[in-house]
């Protein structure tokens, strides 16, 4: 429910709506885009970053919170681990049970490999499940993989690794067909034509969707298929360290059973990290649209084992996170809301930016409107936001469109007394995606032999900025590529003696580089208290002064 003050402000939005309807706000020029990024994008704020003091990328600039995890001790410091006591012995070990992990598992299985998926929470608890908007693929006659390639490169500011982009766009239609043939219910017209829309920065309408449950629909089908194949999945058992063999090749992982608090050894011929992103590190204090488990564990494990980071200093802030109500603060308002025609407005009910700039530009424009131009709307909890004029969608596409195309969004707001069909919604950027990660090649391989990465934990595909709909695509394309390659490769791997020597060396290196710390990583689970300490402090001082 909006406050009385907010309802007053909504009247301005309603007053300008007829005048705005049907009028397209101009896109920014390349210079204007550059300017707003420099002025307002969190990636350009130097104080949010520092250079890491050890490891393969010593000196690399990464977000402070990630640097703290990289410059931290292993959970296995002072823990006796018997590497000969093997609990799981498989060909391919997949760490992470999201869309990339499931796709990798299915392809490795197809190669005849014995596969184990181990995951921190439940199988399917992943950002994949929450990807609402869609998945890109150039599968329509007016589109082509080359056009998709250009959109990806432009969106990533020409920094993307060309080989990876080539793989992404070239495999995209195959990825859609693979999912479709498994029974993923894409939105289609009666003749079978895919219903596709624009996303920020696309030159063709190539966003495929399953209402606004696209990721959920993909994840539940992939999960079902993995279970149907009889692939073993171990829940609530995050990996805390990669195990190498005596030659420095990846050969398994130490798992931690969150419930029995035991460490378990998983031995494997090839290892794939598919642990996803880092939103729960709350870079620069931002709220996040990410899953509870998104704590960058894979980056920490992989880096310690010797894999390189790439683009680790580029974070995607989704332009439209929930600014109000506070109960769902930071939750994602899918880009599809803008794809369908909703436009961002300031306190005067005026549009201040084209509604489908690339995400970094759009987010920066929202931040500028609120913090520089002071044209944002205050929220009762002391934050700011801008309107997203969702009722426009019903005017453009007809009544009932929101219920049909955005049922998840409609339900989420309804639960808190807001009807987005009739009232605009209040949004502010939210930490959404880790553009970079562990550097891979087109088969998902890292520099560490037999160690693969796929999905959000990997880096290079998206360069410095990812377009909407290319992350669901990424997890399918590179999950499959990594799984297939790792499955095949596992046939030629000869098992050697297992070793955690690299962890000792890492600890030594912490000392040598002057890092004195009690921090332990990976983080595994975030810790939230929702202001309890402040309440307790206040109560105590009130008692003292009573």
């Amino acid at each position: 429910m909006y406050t009385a003050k907010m309802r007053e402000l909504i009247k301005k939005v309603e007053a300008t709506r007829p005048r705005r309807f049907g009028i397209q706000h101009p896109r920014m020029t390349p210079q204007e885009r550059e300017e707003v990024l420099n002025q307002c994008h969190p990636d350009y704020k130097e104080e949010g970053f520092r250079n890491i003091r050890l490891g393969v990328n010593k000196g690399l600039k990464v977000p402070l919170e990630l640097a703290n995890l990289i410059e931290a001790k292993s959970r296995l410091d002072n823990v006796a681990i018997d590497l000969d006591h093997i609990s799981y012995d498989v060909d391919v070990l997949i760490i992470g049970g999201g869309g990339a992990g499931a796709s990798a598992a299915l392809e490795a299985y197809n190669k005849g490999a014995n596969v184990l998926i181990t995951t921190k929470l439940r199988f399917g608890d992943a950002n994949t499940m929450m990807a609402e908007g869609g998945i890109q693929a150039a599968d329509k006659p007016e589109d082509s993989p080359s056009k998709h390639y250009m959109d990806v490169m432009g969106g990533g500011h020409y920094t993307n690794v060309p080989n990876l982009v080539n793989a992404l766009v070239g495999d995209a239609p195959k990825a859609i067909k693979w999912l479709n043939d498994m029974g993923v219910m894409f939105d289609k017209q009666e003749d079978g034509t895919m219903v596709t829309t624009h996303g920020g920065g696309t030159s063709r309408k190539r966003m495929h969707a399953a209402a606004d449950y696209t990721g959920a629909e993909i994840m539940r089908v992939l999960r079902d298929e993995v279970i149907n194949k009889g692939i073993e999945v171990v829940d609530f058992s995050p990996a805390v360290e990669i195990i190498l063999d005596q030659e420095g090749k990846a050969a398994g992982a130490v798992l931690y059973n969150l419930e029995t608090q035991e460490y378990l050894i998983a031995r494997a011929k090839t290892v794939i990290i598919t642990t996803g992103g880092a939103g729960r590190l709350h870079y620069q204090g931002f709220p996040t649209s990410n899953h509870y488990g998104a704590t960058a564990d894979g980056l920490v494990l992989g880096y310690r084992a010797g894999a390189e980071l790439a683009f680790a200093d580029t974070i995607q802030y989704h332009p439209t996170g929930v600014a109000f109500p506070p109960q769902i603060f930071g939750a994602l308002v899918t880009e599809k809301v803008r794809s369908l025609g909703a436009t961002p407005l300031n306190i005067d009910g005026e549009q201040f930016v084209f509604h489908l700039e690339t995400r970094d530009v759009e987010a920066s424009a929202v931040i500028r409107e609120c913090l520089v131009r002071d044209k944002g709307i205050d929220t009762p909890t002391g934050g700011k936001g801008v309107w997203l004029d969702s009722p426009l969608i019903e005017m453009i596409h007809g009544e009932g469109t929101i219920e049909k195309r955005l049922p998840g969004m409609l339900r989420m707001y309804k639960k808190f007394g807001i009807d987005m069909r009739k009232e605009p919604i209040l949004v502010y950027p939210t930490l959404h995606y880790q553009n970079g990660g562990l550097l891979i090649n087109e088969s998902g391989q890292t520099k560490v032999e037999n160690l693969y990465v796929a999905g959000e934990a990997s880096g290079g595909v998206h360069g410095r900025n990812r377009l909407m709909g290319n992350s669901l695509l990424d997890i399918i394309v590179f999950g499959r590529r990594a799984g297939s390659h790792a499955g095949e490769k596992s046939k030629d791997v000869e098992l050697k003696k297992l070793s955690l020597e690299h962890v000792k060396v890492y600890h030594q290196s912490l000392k040598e580089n002057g890092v004195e710390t009690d921090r332990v990583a990976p983080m595994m689970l975030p810790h939230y208290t929702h202001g309890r300490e402040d309440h307790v402090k206040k109560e105590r001082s009130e008692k003292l002064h009573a």
Partner: protein
Amino acid sequence: MAKNEMVDIYILGKKYTVPSTLTIMDSMEYAGYQLTRGCGCRSGFCGACATIYRIKGEKELKVCLACQTKVEEGMYLTQLPFFPGDKKTYDMSQLKPTADTMMQLYPEIYSCIGCNSCTKGCPQELNVMQYIAYAQRGEFEKCAEESFDCVSCGICASRCPANITHYQVGLLARRLNGKYIAPETKHLKERVKEIQEGKYDSDLKELMKKNTDELKAIYNARDIEK
């Protein structure tokens, strides 16, 4: 401001005083829990946080997702972090989209006694009993549509006297619908064929060789579909 207003809630029977503005999930963390079970996407999509509660003094048991529901005074709550529902395994390529398939894999759906407990229990407000009825009749397109927003939280199955695992039935119906009933996409099939024939390889190879300035020039001159 309502910010400082506190309410008493009972987590697994134990009383905690928490701010009234919090969701159930946040209130558990405020109380001092670090969640492992019963917490997932925190956005209403994953079904990890199914919660059953009763308000003190009332009789009715209510259900919700902990991340999407505010606390209320006198809330007695417990979570349902896992439900041991039955999932059959199958080879999708061997199935037919007919009622016989359901009959073979999930015959218990025909024991539905029409009590509607599943529907009453659904935190997504889906008409669960209706989609089971569609499944019984082999009307998978309707079943798929009606069950589409399911988050597999398991509450429906936990309340079913006929031991139906509704969410698995809905999932099977959606997969049958997506694979066999939904119309085939010709442009997709054609594009995949073209890619396999290498139609775009030379274009992409050219683009991969371009430097940043050349790419910029192409990018800024793109024609953009209306």
